[in-house]
């Protein structure tokens, strides 16, 4: 009997020994601090501190593993959007938006030319760049839904729509009445509207007016672009604008949850300075900063929608404009003072508070939505010179928190902390929210907890879903304007510096993790979404897909048997297939002066089997992703022998993927 007991015992021992052995596989090279010996040796050789090693293992992404978060960054003056993985901070894609982008064939012959042309002033005034500022992901119930991305062009007051099924720009909307914008793009909690706030005041509709007429004729203008989620497009006929005093409205944020239905925008030129330093006037920088306070603009957008639907507007240049008098009479607009050169207006996740930074004031000012509503309900408010009711600061403010110099923007996490960028201090301030957020962390509400130096001159700041109803915590990204000495010198134009900050621990445990140089523009804002909320296509749904219309292309063909060239007078129409590793047909013979319409369909169904189509001499380059159909149209103005070839290394016989276009004189 005792012998049989031994057997299970032996088995247990064997299993234990097996486990030991397994652990031993790595323990044999472990050093005391828990790192493999070879890694510890590297750390020692490079002089890495334990914090450095922590940062490295926190951000390293082994091959084949995907970042849990995706960051959409404005591309600044490049007019593009950058897609970046977090925490690895690797650029995954650059999306052409307002600027032609050759890799995607964006603006080099295909239907994307039409998208870019939507944003032109007219045919004689094309715009081929943009100053992208604020990306905004579409939202459902105040949370990112991963379907669309919107971004503004400050330079020309335009808005672009990117479809996140294929990460391509589908529409550009030119604001017909504003010359520039800044407070865009921001969405309402269910993406009913995309809000495009103004910046520098100008007469509505680009009229001429001298600066002496500033107070009478110059105006601010906020636009509520109606977004039709089904078509994935802005519908101008259902959009409206509200005329505003020329106060240089700046950044906006939509109320959410308890404050749903409202929009808040800061402003910074209630002085109505008009510059003219050369005439002995104070320069803008001084004139605009004279007053101790400017006005936080408070909009009742749901009521404004009603006013628009009731027809109480004027149509100017094809879009409805609610006049300032109407906005005041209907109770759409209220002001409340905000301290010294304010910047940003950021709504807390539950919608209870609005945080405004004061560039030249060491505080952030926190407004209570409840108090604002009470003050509006109580009525009897004084007005500003244009007649807009002004809520006294003591009737709207919840509190102020002193953070440091140059507070600009604020984002939030899921532990009741707020994070504010301090431009002059070059730091990220972590501070606690009060009220319902007080219980989420050990510190008292409305208290500065930690200031983390960043390098250098931080502008915007972003946290994982940190401007939504569902903040994710974990990481903050500091968008620094200057990098000075952080990277190898690449000449006087230095990269920007995106710094990744670990905010996963509470208290004063924020840690700097990673510096990412941005060497192609000055991005402004970014948004960070949980990667699992995105569900893009790997290939287009079927062969013959038109990415511009997101539907089957009328001139698609599905096999080389349908490929052909048809001549009708001097118009030549070509239907061509593209597949590894040949174009079909490979010879196109036309005459000088022919009007050429050329349809190309990729027959590929395999992920990443993309082909390019470059036509030498004619400034044409397409990206034909699996299943995509594109049409190019041009007049063969040059005779001669031309080649077209594939510009994506598609296969082992990629170099052999070409054809000749012979243009007979």
């Amino acid at each position, binding site marked *: 009997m005792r012998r049989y007991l031994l057997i299970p015992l032996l088995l247990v021992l064997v299993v234990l020994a097996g486990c030991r052995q397994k652990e031993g596989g790595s323990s044999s090279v472990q050093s005391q601090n828990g790192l493999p010996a070879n890694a510890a040796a590297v750390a020692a050789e490079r002089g890495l501190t334990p914090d450095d090693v922590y940062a490295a293992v926190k951000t390293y992404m082994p091959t084949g593993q995907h970042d849990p978060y995706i960051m959409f960054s404005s591309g600044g003056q490049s007019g593009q959007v950058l897609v970046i993985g977090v925490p690895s901070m690797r650029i995954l894609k650059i999306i052409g938006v307002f600027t032609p982008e050759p890799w995607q064939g964006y603006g080099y012959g295909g239907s994307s030319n039409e998208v870019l042309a939507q944003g032109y002033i007219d045919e004689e005034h094309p715009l081929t760049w943009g100053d992208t500022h604020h990306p905004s992901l579409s939202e459902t119930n105040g949370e990112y839904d991963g379907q669309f991305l919107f971004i503004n062009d400050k330079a020309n007051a335009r808005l672009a729509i990117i479809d996140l099924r294929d990460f391509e720009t589908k529409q550009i909307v030119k604001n017909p009445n504003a010359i520039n914008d800044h407070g865009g793009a921001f969405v309402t909690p269910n993406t009913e509207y995309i809000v495009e706030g103004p910046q520098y005041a100008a007469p509505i509709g680009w009229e001429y007016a001298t600066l002496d007429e500033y107070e009478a004729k110059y105006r601010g203008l906020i636009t509520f672009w109606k977004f039709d989620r089904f078509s994935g497009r802005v519908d101008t006929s259902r959009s409206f604008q509200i005329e505003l005093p020329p106060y240089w409205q700046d950044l906006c944020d939509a109320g959410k949850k308890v404050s749903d239905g409202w929009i808040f925008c800061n402003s910074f030129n209630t002085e109505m300075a008009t510059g003219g330093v050369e005439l002995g006037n104070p320069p803008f920088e001084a004139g605009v900063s004279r007053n101790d306070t400017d006005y936080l603009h408070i909009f009742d957008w749901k009521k404004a929608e009603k006013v628009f639907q009731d027809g109480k507007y004027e149509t100017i240049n094809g879009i409805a404009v609610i006049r300032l008098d109407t906005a005041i009479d209907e109770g759409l607009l209220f002001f409340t003072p905000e301290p010294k050169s304010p910047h940003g207006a950021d709504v807390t996740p539950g919608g209870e508070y609005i945080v405004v930074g004061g560039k030249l004031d060491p505080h952030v000012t926190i407004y209570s939505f409840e108090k604002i509503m009470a003050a509006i309900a109580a009525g009897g408010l004084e007005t500003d010179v244009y007649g807009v009711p002004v809520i006294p600061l003591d009737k709207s403010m919840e509190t102020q928190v002193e953070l440091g110099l140059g507070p600009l923007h604020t984002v939030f996490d899921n532990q009741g902390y707020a994070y504010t960028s301090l431009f002059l201090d070059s730091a990220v301030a972590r501070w606690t929210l009060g009220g319902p957020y007080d219980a989420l962390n050990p510190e008292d509400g409305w208290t500065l907890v930690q200031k983390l130096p960043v390098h250098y001159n931080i502008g915007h700041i972003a946290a994982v879903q940190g401007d939504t109803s569902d903040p994710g915590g974990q990481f903050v990204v500091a968008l620094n304007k200057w990098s000075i000495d952080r990277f190898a010198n690449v000449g006087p134009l230095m990269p920007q510096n995106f710094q990744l900050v670990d905010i996963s621990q509470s208290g004063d445990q924020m840690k700097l993790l990673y510096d990412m140089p941005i060497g192609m523009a000055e991005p402004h804002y970014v948004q960070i979404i949980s990667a699992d909320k995105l569900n893009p296509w790997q290939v287009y749904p079927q062969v013959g897909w038109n990415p511009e219309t997101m539907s089957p292309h009328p001139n698609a063909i599905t096999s080389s048997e349908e490929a052909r060239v048809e001549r009708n007078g001097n118009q030549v129409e070509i239907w061509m297939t593209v597949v*590894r*590793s040949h174009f079909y047909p490979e010879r196109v013979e036309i005459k000088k002066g022919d009007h050429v319409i050329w349809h190309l369909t990729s027959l590929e169904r*395999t992920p990443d089997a993309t082909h390019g189509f470059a036509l030498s001499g004619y400034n044409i380059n397409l990206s034909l992703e699996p299943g995509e159909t594109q049409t190019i149209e041009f007049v063969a103005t040059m005779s001669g022998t031309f080649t077209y070839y594939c510009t994506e290394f598609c296969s082992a*016989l990629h170099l*052999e993927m070409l054809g000749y276009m012979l243009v007979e004189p």
Partner: protein
Amino acid sequence: MNPLASDLKVMLPDGTSRPLLTYLMPSAVLMLAAFLLMLSMFLPYWSMTMFAPQYPKGLKVEVFVNRLVGDVQEIDALNHYLGMPPLDEGGKLERQISMAGIIVLGLLLMAAVFVHNKWAAALALPALTFPFIFLADLYWILYTYGHSIDPTSALGGAIAPFTPPLVGEGVIAQFRTIARLEIGFWMAIVALLVLLAGLWLHRAAYKPVVEARQKNN
């Protein structure tokens, strides 16, 4: 009345009797074989999976008796470099007639239920041979396929004629291929075994009847 009750008997021409179940069983089993064979039409018979570094999930084509399913287009795209005909070219006729053919095989089995002599086995013979005909035909298709290389294709001149493996592993350029018989084929084999059992039961049941008749004559 329970037809399975042991007191239900069938009287043979010579006056002896046997349980009813003896006669129900071969009919039921032959019907089952017919059913399995017809069900197999809806399942893949054979598959080929190809692995290469740039295809981390592999490429797979599944062969049903009447169609090809899977990454056919991509495999064709790759094969065209070698000058191989499209997968679709092989066994076109077979795929067209297979559904009707298997239905006929099943109907013959059902007819065998009603033929109470040795000719029942003759009716079952096509179904018995079907899996082997499938294999032979597939081998022929693969052979033809590997011996129809277009010498004018990109790599056609560099490839010696070959027969892709019917079952097992092979290597073509950077591709490791695994060919295997799939559930449909195995179901046809099971149908075959069930059919043999059914024929055995059929013989056991009806041979005494035939002998009894002869004795009476």
